[in-house]
């Protein structure tokens, strides 16, 4: 299988280059990884990308509803089949909102309890393993990632029966999410879907003095390559 790792670029994405910077840094050590910026109007075919990141931002201006338009973009047209064939998709922040719109993960995000945008660095507990991102060894660890969102209050309605497990929880709930859930995960066919509000790509570089996000990316490399 190919080692192309893609970041999907929607108009309004603004964390696309941050993730790409992480991939480029990884590819220095692991030349097999080829970082790709994938334009939203190009369909994603099966078995082309091993990892697909839906980055943070305000895709299509978040008009209508965060993530609502990105869901019907050409790039994500047959996302389910692409994942079933083996792709590992991570949606960060706006990317998480998009994944919830696709219903590949259950639940919905509403405005933060404070009604305000929250930017902070928060402590999170890794609740469970989540291939390829978290290993059994990570379970129970506490990490600090930045958050930056206004619609990050994760909720499940009674009719939300979709399969998922919470793998990341806030130590101190900043936004009112049910059970303090910050990230949810499921496997799907040969691939997986992971949606989270915090930004592990902003906790990667040593120069920024916060490297708690390194294991998540490092695990993916070690588990997939």
């Amino acid at each position, binding site marked *: 299988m190919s080692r192309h790792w893609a970041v999907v670029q929607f*108009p309004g994405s603004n964390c696309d280059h941050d993730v790409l910077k992480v991939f480029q840094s990884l590819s220095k050590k692991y030349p097999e990884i080829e970082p790709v910026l994938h334009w939203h109007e190009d369909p994603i075919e099966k078995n082309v990308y091993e990892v697909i990141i839906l980055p943070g931002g305000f895709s299509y*201006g978040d008009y209508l509803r965060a993530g609502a338009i990105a869901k019907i973009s050409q790039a994500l047209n047959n996302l389910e089949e692409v994942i079933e064939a083996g792709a590992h998709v991570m949606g960060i922040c706006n990317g998480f909102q998009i994944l919830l719109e696709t219903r590949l993960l259950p639940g919905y995000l509403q405005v933060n309890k404070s009604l305000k945008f929250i930017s902070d660095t928060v402590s999170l507990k890794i609740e469970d393993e989540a291939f390829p991102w978290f290993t059994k060894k990570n379970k129970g660890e506490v990490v600090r990632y930045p958050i930056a969102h206004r619609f990050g209050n994760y909720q499940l309605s009674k009719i939300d029966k979709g399969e998922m497990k919470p793998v990341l929880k806030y130590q101190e709930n900043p936004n009112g999410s049910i059970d303090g859930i910050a990230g949810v995960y499921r496997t799907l066919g040969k691939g997986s879907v992971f949606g989270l509000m915090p930004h592990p790509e902003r906790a990667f570089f040593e120069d920024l003095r916060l490297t708690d996000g390194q294991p998540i990316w490092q695990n993916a490399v070690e588990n997939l390559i």
Partner: protein
Amino acid sequence: MSQAISKEGLDPIRELAAAVGLSDKEWNHLIFVLGRHPSESELQMIGVMWSEHCSYKSSKRYLKKLITKGKYVLEGPGENAGLIALDAERGIAFKIESHNHPSFVEPFQGAATGVGGILRDIFTMGARPIALGDYLRFGDLNLEKHQYLLDGVIGGIAHYGNCMGIPVVAGHVGSGSSYNGNILVNVFALGIVDRNKIFRSNTGKPGQVVMVWGAKTGRDGIHGASLLASADFESGKTETKEQKIRVQVGDPFKEKVLMEATLECMQSLSSDLAAIQDMGAAGLTSSTTEMAAKSKIGMKIDLSKVPVRETGMKAFELLLSESQERMLAIVEKGSEEKFKAILNKWGCEGEVVGETDDSELLRMTFDGQTVVDLPIQKLMDAPPADLPEPEWPAVQSQAYKIPDEIKKEWEVLEKLLCHPSVASKKEIFKRYDTTVGAATVFGPGQEASVLWVGSKEHPHLGIAFKGVADENFYQLNPRFGAKAAMAKAVRSLSCVGARARAFTDGINVGNPKNAKTQAALSETVEGLNEAIIAFETPCVSGNVSMYNQTVSDGVPRDIYPTTFVVVVGVMDDVRKAVPSLFQSEGSEIWLLEIPGNRELFPEASLYAREFFPELKPSVCPFLDLEGEQRLQNALLKANDLNLMLSCRDVSTGGLAVSLAKACFSEKRFGFEGDLSKTQSRRDQLLFGEAQGRVILEINPNRRSELMKLGAEFNLQIRKLGNVTQDPTFRIRPTLSGSIETLFQAWSSVFK
């Protein structure tokens, strides 16, 4: 506007000239140059071109004295933004802009479009913006109106900056009653540019094509520059429909795609893109006139081709619309479709609206009719305004009795920590995305902001910046205010380990027709120049906002003259950036200071203003620019030696306030100090605001190196105390209490 024309018995065009703000002198000058009466559209254009906002007619004579050249300068004032060198390949573009008047009328949109405007200035140069800073002044925050303005302005900046994905990493929020009728919203942006791909507005040539890029044009913001930004307010009438409709409405998503499209055009079609300018104040008018005049070319524009989103727009409305998220570009003939392809890919409009020629005339047609035909070079400069000679009111040195009373230190400390200019702004900064871009080493709350801009050649390179203004100093003595602001900003950069290279200034003053305002301008520029010479930090860009005046009960009241300086510096290795909070238990805290006479009381400190208001302090605190250079060099050397665990400047509130704030890390260290042997008046020592003092945290075993450093740079050093695990704040013999109490006081103001 149009009612004025129909007044019977008056020359309608003369009447309109007065309505668009032309003085008799300007009208006569216009007729003299044209040799005929202007058309309505021409007059509307001249009205905005010669407005204070666009022409700087009341400040030019001082601004041109500013020192703008230096070894790092790639582009000084005059372009969309200033540029300095970062390394051999890259430059730093930066600028500050004001959006005071729109933000007072409509805080959310006013502040949001202020962010949009300054970001366009940056990416118009070819730079990708990487950081924002906001410098704000509100009126008395006990007034409900100002709580509303605060919330709206912060919300607007957050909305626009967060959507654009540009982190707000710095800022300052202050308040004071001089801003009750006129708040200040100054926004700073900084970006990185490839030195081989810098774009300017003055590089158009005859025979090229003029394009409008970005959003469609509507009727929003018409006359914003002339009637909103260049006029004063009248108390109680600031929310008239007349003024509300002058405020532009921003759409950060449109700007984001315009930015990406523009940067992609610059990257892939750089040789076809001749010149570019953003459409800010007075939209199409200022962009066409400035590009034609600066490039020394003529331009023919067909206004019917401008993409519009409203029907029935008149020529003058197209010319004056301040619809946001638009650019004017001059491109090589034949390349139009290539530009359109990139713009359309990003969902932006791109339309050819005219061409350039060698006529030195700006000609515009609308529906086949010629509506504008102006000799543009001759009309760029407004005739010199009739202005009063600068005169700063003499400060009466008051015969006051130095109070014997010394206030209870703990109560003073608590009260100073809850003063809005000192109190924690954490809750405000939580509304801004401070970490997007994965480059923020130090965000808000540190002595200076630090961004990591590593490249292959310089993997750990960093940019630092710091913005400062103390309006109380400016009000007392504008020259001192300017020098103190520059010294403080440079000192803060030195504290984190960056060397200052250049700065941008945001001047905010009252009515230019007052001698005092003229003096504020003149003296501020003199003060800035003294600092520029001392620190070798030229001014590369800036903004002047005038008419920050409100008529209240028939009396015009100017704001305190307030000039924000944002100084930008560079550091080789961001891993060595020094934090401003205490780092470890047991380390020693030292004061490093410039020697000199500090026994001035009551100098203009926050303590004196709050606790002895009847004394009306008239003495500027100690400041020594030559000493500041030594302090800068000493701190940078200390950084080279890895001497400092933490470092912070002593500023508003004085020494005790700075020491207390240094304890407010998540670990909540305490401080144990002893100043019982000091000869000075104790309140002056604890709360005075003498400049040129820095608190250093060092490992005890490196004391001798610090002493050597002090001697080498002729600076005084004295040990203040130690960092303790016990969360108690103590300065013997009399000041003692719990850190948590102080922290709660400090955090209680902005929720």
